[in-house]
């Protein structure tokens, strides 16, 4: 990325007005539903364990030798609030992700994350769709399982296929065939298929909800009670881009402890730094965590789709290049 000395904003005044109107509209949406707005700290003693996420890190002068991490999402802190107070909450604010720069990525961006106590994944999906139709106007909504998408685009069952079957299915797509041939990690092949083959081919005018990701990609979602091969995790795509990711939230501390450990094992294999597990989150889950569903949605991307802008810098007052 080229840094710029230009003092001018990257978004037009019209876009900033649209941005302000959208922030207000979202707050109104949750106000009417009596979902409590919270603003948890962005600076925390713990970072994220997720193998593919990377925290920016800093230090506080009066607390030497104790790194603090800028949060990649308010998830852990919000879950501590859920455990303590058991009511539906949302946060609309900045988050930070290292290593993410591009037309759809800015290392500092705005996320809308909310948790609905007592909701199932299906109920939360219905609310996400309601919100998106309100913001984006009438459009087609398509809901498919992860398995159905793979069968449609790659004629392969993602829950059963072997590494070589996945490689063969991907060999028909020349832009990914080379990488698929030399890659032998199953989840990496599935992610390659999803991100580079399926996602670019989704209907750009529709809102697409993909549900039931493989349990190996459960992240912080519950595993389905009736099918241990899949997790109750969903993703939302609109305007050709990934917009939101949600779960039927994992509620058991023991299972969460295991997932943190698995993340760190994978980090070790990939030569990435270990990430200490947030013990306060584990304590909160152990203290009793309500059944709930939660989702995180990229606010800037939502604004990009609403305003038909292809580059995130057009919707930010100042993107990283001039920040």
């Amino acid at each position, binding site marked *: 990325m080229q840094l710029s000395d230009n003092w001018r904003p990257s978004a037009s005044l019209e876009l900033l007005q649209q941005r302000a109107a959208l922030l207000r509209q979202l707050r109104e949406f949750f106000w009417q539903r009596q979902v409590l707005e919270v603003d948890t700290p962005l600076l925390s003693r713990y970072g994220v364990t*997720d193998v*593919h996420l990377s925290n920016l890190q800093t230090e506080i002068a009066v607390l030497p030798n104790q790194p603090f991490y800028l949060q990649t999402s308010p998830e852990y802190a919000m879950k501590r609030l859920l455990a303590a107070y058991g009511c539906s909450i949302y946060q609309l604010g900045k988050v930070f992700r290292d*290593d*993410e*720069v*591009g*037309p759809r*990525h800015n290392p500092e961006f705005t996320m809308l994350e909310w948790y609905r106590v007592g909701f199932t994944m299906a109920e939360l999906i219905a609310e996400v769709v309601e919100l998106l139709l309100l913001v984006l106007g009438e459009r087609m909504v398509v809901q498919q399982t992860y398995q159905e998408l793979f069968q449609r685009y790659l004629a392969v069952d993602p829950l059963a296929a072997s590494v070589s079957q996945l490689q063969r299915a991907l060999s028909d797509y*020349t*832009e*990914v065939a*080379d*990488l698929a041939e030399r*890659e032998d990690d199953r*989840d*990496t092949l599935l*992610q*390659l298929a*999803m*991100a*580079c083959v399926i*996602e670019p081919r989704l209907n750009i005018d529709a809102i697409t909800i993909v549900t039931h990701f493989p349990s190996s*990609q459960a*992240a912080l979602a519950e595993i389905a009670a009736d099918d241990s091969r899949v997790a109750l995790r969903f*993703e939302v795509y609109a305007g050709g881009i*990934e917009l939101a*990711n949600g779960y039927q939230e994992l509620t058991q501390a023991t299972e969460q402890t295991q997932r943190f450990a698995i993340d760190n094992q994978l980090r070790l294999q990939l030569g990435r730094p270990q990430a200490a597990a947030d013990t306060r989150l584990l304590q909160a889950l152990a203290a009793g965590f309500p059944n709930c569903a939660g989702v*995180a949605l*990229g606010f800037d991307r939502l604004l990009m789709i609403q305003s038909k802008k292809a580059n995130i810098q057009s919707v930010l007052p100042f993107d990283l290049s001039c920040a």
Partner: protein
Amino acid sequence: MANYSTNEFKAGLKIMQDGEPCSIVENEMVKPGKGQAFNRVRIRKLISGKVVEKTFKSGDSVEGADVVDVDLAYLYNDGEFWHFMNNETFEQLAADAKAVGDMTKWLVEQDVCTLTLWNGNPIAVTPPNFVELEIVETDPGLKGDTAGTGGKPATLSTGAVVRVPLFVQIGEIIKVDTRSGEYVSRVQK
């Protein structure tokens, strides 16, 4: 040659792919919210000229290609090789027919061309944007006619054929844009 990480990918970077030196045309990072990041790149193969799409895992390394562009003056063709010279060091380089390709029709003695070298060997020759060449054959046409009627074909001293206005005659020197192969103007001797 050094390896490049996908973090260093940008337009113009020269890398090896399929045993051939390539130039990156476009690089885009694809990063799912949860999951592995990928770099989707469009590359131009510098020998075949083909543009293809490739995908890399972000963080992977790719072998760099030792590709440089040098400006050399065209000297002569000995039937097999086209010879070029560095006007400062007087060092000479010979390019074969594969490297010169159909650019041979724009090679004018003393003109400074850009040679693309891979491991020191020429793999492509780019002539100057404009060259001046003599017309050796064309229909006499009508004198006094102006451009706009579509013109007529004219064969130049190098064998190149371009469309010229009807008033341009055999023996005249014309200026041609080598990128489009189009006539630009007559040149006063």
